[in-house]
């Protein structure tokens, strides 16, 4: 687990409450590396890193639903913390596999909408679609191992 001790403008870094639980659920094959931030009024530099980090090592191989739910929650947190104008940059910082993975999380997020999650996800969806094309959506539909 990487603990980044930088702080920036009120952005607090700390151990996420689930980290302790996660280490127990770590899959021997995949492993879950989570960089956790408590997200306050955003400092966008770190948000990009947050995005990269949260999309690393997704819990694809594990069968533990808890782990998957926590991971999805974290991803949603990061996605919601982005400013609308920065979403495009965020998507462009990802490689092809990253865009596919992002699409998977977006659709996972659509499955269980909360207050304004859908609005945020739709903005991300638009940018991710521009980057990945319908092919990335097809890959969400045909993937046998889901996030």
């Amino acid at each position, binding site marked *: 687990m990487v603990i980044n001790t930088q702080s920036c403008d009120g952005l607090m870094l700390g151990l996420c409450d689930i980290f302790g639980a996660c280490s127990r659920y770590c899959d021997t094959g995949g492993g879950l590396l989570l960089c956790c931030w408590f997200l306050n009024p955003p400092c966008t530099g770190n948000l990009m890193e947050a995005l990269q980090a949260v999309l690393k090592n997704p819990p694809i191989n594990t069968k533990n639903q808890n782990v998957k739910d926590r991971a999805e929650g974290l991803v949603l947190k990061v996605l919601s913390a982005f400013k609308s104008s920065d979403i495009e940059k965020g998507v462009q910082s990802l490689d*092809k596999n990253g865009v596919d993975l992002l699409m998977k999380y977006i659709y996972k997020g659509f499955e269980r909408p909360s207050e304004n999650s859908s609005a945020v996800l739709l903005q991300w969806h638009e940018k991710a679609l521009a980057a990945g*094309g*319908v*092919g990335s959506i097809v*890959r969400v539909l*045909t*993937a*046998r191992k889901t996030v």
Partner: protein
Amino acid sequence: PLLPLQLSFSLPELTLSLAFALTGQSPRAEHPHLHLIRHLPLPLPIYLFPSLQLFTHSSLSSPQEIALCPNNHEVHIYKKDGTKWTKIHELKEHNGQVTGIDWAPDSNRIVTCGADRNAYVWTLKEGTWKPTLVILRINRAARCVKWSPRENKFAVGSGSRLISICYFEQENDWWVCKHIKKPIRSTILSLDWHPNNVLLAAGSCDFKCRVFSAYIKEVEEKPGPTPWGSKMPFGEMLFESGGSGAAGPASAGGGGWVHSVCFSHSGNRLAWTSHDSTVSVAEGGKTGTVNSLSSETLPLLCVTFITENSLVAAGHDCYPVLFVYDGAKASLTFGGKLDVPKQTAQKGISARERFQNLDRRASETQSTEKDLNTLHKNSISEISVLEGGRNQCTKFCTTGMDGGMGIWDVKTLESEMKNLKIV
């Protein structure tokens, strides 16, 4: 608006009126009552057949003939007279939907397979095609069939999760078949033979593309070693995709049904397209690395090599696409979209037309982005090389679920599309 295909059903000689000559420059008018008959300017000829489903052609021979299945139990054979296609034969023997047709050009035999779990080999005797039943010993529908390069055997893929390799036994005057079963776990969707007449590539619904040996000692000598392997007893699997070759977490354990497989002309390269919108190439001998390209398009249904390094694939996006494989860098890249829709001249729209459009489409403009401006109006299901072989293809042909058959000239494409390089 009337769909062009509806017109075709009302006229018997329909294909005649719908065949177009190659023309040039005039923009296609986007009038809501467009009848294709009156408007010529498609950049490439498209021939429309009533509900064409399957297609194969007798290549190289002239006059050119094609066999197709109009989505039912029959096979129709059409012959080309000038620019017109006339139906010359109807092959009726199957009790179920015909799912595969292949025409052996040298021995002039046609093999068909169908949902009735049978295959028939048709030979031309005294001007009519006579069928011979081949018992495949399968208990599910046959799905695809391919003659081997030397035409002494053919392979049938089926829903029974096996491949039937059929060859003719002289003493009994009978077609006999052998099965390849392991380790196929689902329906075989596509087959392609290696030029050495022994190796067979099979794409399956269990997300894998495999190369098997279909060596039949009764009809051929032992094959020499190839980059895919040197020991080739019948049924041996020499390659399987999706093993350790998958790259990246996003595609690990993923994949989709393998719709189409194709060997290159030399047989050293194998390409396949999959339902997860990827196209992949594997090289014999370097099977540890499979190079996949996740495309941005809808899934591709058919693929063929046109040179040793270039692939053309097409599918649900209704236009053919070029991919280039770099053997040295072992990478597959997107080469370009191959359909060049002529730009429609936006004429002034009269007020009346605006209201008509508003009424009809809830939008004021003539054509929305959803209108297909590609040659094919529905998914392209098959692609085949017409001239030049798979190493120097000059013409290839696509057929689609819109009943259309388009013939594409490679030279014309290269000149019409900037930045298109076929290596």
